[in-house]
């Protein structure tokens, strides 16, 4: 792999950009791999990357039914934060946030990580108490967050209206080291690094069956034929129940559509991320100037990658109250992704009833921020059978009543 650098840019400028290589290969599948990862979203690619980097396992295929990064990884609003309530969550999200800080250097790929700060508005008394509790929990976990006053909120976000008629801003949880990153670049950066280690990324190839022999995985049946493997990682977000069904087990999870939209590009007006969970709206401004806006999830199971129309209205209504200037903006695009929601709003990173088969799903509405931490932990689990970061996220936690209840911190937003 040729490294990207200022010298590479200069060299290519002098030869009319004829020397750039493809960022990753698109090979035909081999008959057998040590490890197959299903799903080339951020979590699948990160898992493969750390299998290679941390454990030297490189005979790996990543199988994707569409194009890499075309699932939720390419559809999300890119908020990165680690101010969760429960200790196991704080551990994995903070691991992820800290890996984001050095990801561009690590991958030699600019993922545009922008730790611009994340504000979560408290607009009811209940939220004030909830966020103060989170701030105290974060202090004990070593995650830097702070509960700030409405005046401070206005300083940080001058375009905000503190005195909305329905939901005045009563304070906010502020994580200064949170922010955003370029979602596609995260997928592309990992893909390039995986391909460089000799891994095969096989796109336009759907897994349609999981072959289980004597209780252990033997391989998968795909639209490009059967492929054998020693270990299998299912990392397919909203499609996890479908894949688990193929392997003969069930997951405590349901899939719903979550949507987002962007406005026309405007001059810089807001240099942080603002989330308003009570009214289901959150917003940040992209480098292109578009206001990136996320809304609520549909109330019923579906796989339509579209989302219900009335959620757009609800989201825009809420944002108009909090940011009056938004009312003059035109929206350019709207889209949806299928998110995988568990009962306690926490992910599942776990062994499964099928031998040598592992699952990583349930990130729901908020798993972009966790991509590097999740990949790191999932790789450790797959390579060694054990990871301190994933222990509490096992499928068995429901049976044991050991929930990781994040419905306060993550139930409605990102």
């Amino acid at each position: 792999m040729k490294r990207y650098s200022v010298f590479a840019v200069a060299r290519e400028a002098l030869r009319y950009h004829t020397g750039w290589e493809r960022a990753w290969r698109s090979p035909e599948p081999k008959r057998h791999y040590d490890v197959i990862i299903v799903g080339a979203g951020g979590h699948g690619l990160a898992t493969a990357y750390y299998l290679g980097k941390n454990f030297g396992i490189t005979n790996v295929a990543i199988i994707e039914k569409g194009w890499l990064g075309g699932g939720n990884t390419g559809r999300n609003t890119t908020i990165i934060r680690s101010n969760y309530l429960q200790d196991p969550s704080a551990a994995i999200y903070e691991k992820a946030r800290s890996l984001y800080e050095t990801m561009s250097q690590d991958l030699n790929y600019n993922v545009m990580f922008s730790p611009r700060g994340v504000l979560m508005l408290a607009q009811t008394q209940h939220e004030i108490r909830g966020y103060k509790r989170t701030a105290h929990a974060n202090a004990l976990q070593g995650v830097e967050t702070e509960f700030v006053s409405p005046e401070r909120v206005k300083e940080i976000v001058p375009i905000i209206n503190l005195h909305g008629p329905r939901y005045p801003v009563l304070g906010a949880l502020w994580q200064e080291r949170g922010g955003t990153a370029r979602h596609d670049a995260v997928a592309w950066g990992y893909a390039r690094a995986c391909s460089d280690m000799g891994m095969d990324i096989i796109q336009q190839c759907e897994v349609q069956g999981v072959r289980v022999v004597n209780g252990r995985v033997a391989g998968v049946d795909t639209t490009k034929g059967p492929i054998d493997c020693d270990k299998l990682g299912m990392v397919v977000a909203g499609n996890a129940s479908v894949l688990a069904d193929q392997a003969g087990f069930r997951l405590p999870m349901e899939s719903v559509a979550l949507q987002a939209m962007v406005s026309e590009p405007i001059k810089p007006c807001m240099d942080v991320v603002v989330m308003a969970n009570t009214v289901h709206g959150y917003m940040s401004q992209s480098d292109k100037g578009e206001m990136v806006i996320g809304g609520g999830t549909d109330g019923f199971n579906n796989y339509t990658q579209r989302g219900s129309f009335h959620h757009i209205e609800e989201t825009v209504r809420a944002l108009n109250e909090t940011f009056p200037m938004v009312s003059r903006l035109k929206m350019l695009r709207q889209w949806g992704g299928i998110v995988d929601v568990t009962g306690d709003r926490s992910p599942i990173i776990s062994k499964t009833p099928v031998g040598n088969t592992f699952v990583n799903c349930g990130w729901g509405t908020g798993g972009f921020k966790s991509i590097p931490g999740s990949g790191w932990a999932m790789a450790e689990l797959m390579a060694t059978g054990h990871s301190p970061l994933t222990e509490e996220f096992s499928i068995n936690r429901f049976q044991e009543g050991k929930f990781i209840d994040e419905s306060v911190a993550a139930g409605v937003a990102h």
Partner: protein
Amino acid sequence: MLILECPYCGVKAEETELHAGGEAHLKRFGPGSTDGEFHDYLFMRENPKGVHFERWRHANGCGKWFHAARCTMTLEVFGTYSAQTFEPPQEIRDAITAKRPGWTWRDLK
């Protein structure tokens, strides 16, 4: 936009008039059941890409609970039926078979 016809009052209601109540025909397990049964009843859910049976409530209408059979992939509705039944009536199953031959859901075919 999802539109369901309430089998009680006959109104064609769109989703803001309705409340989604989750998977249909759950068998309740309580005291005396095994841990596994209780766990599955509480946490395991059918999450099919395709034919699905659900409970809905005509919340901003007559207020009644009912059942719906629909496709989670296309949002196509196969039919709605009374809440007072443990399994989908034959005409609903036939309506599904007409459009999705070979469909399965739990142990239904």
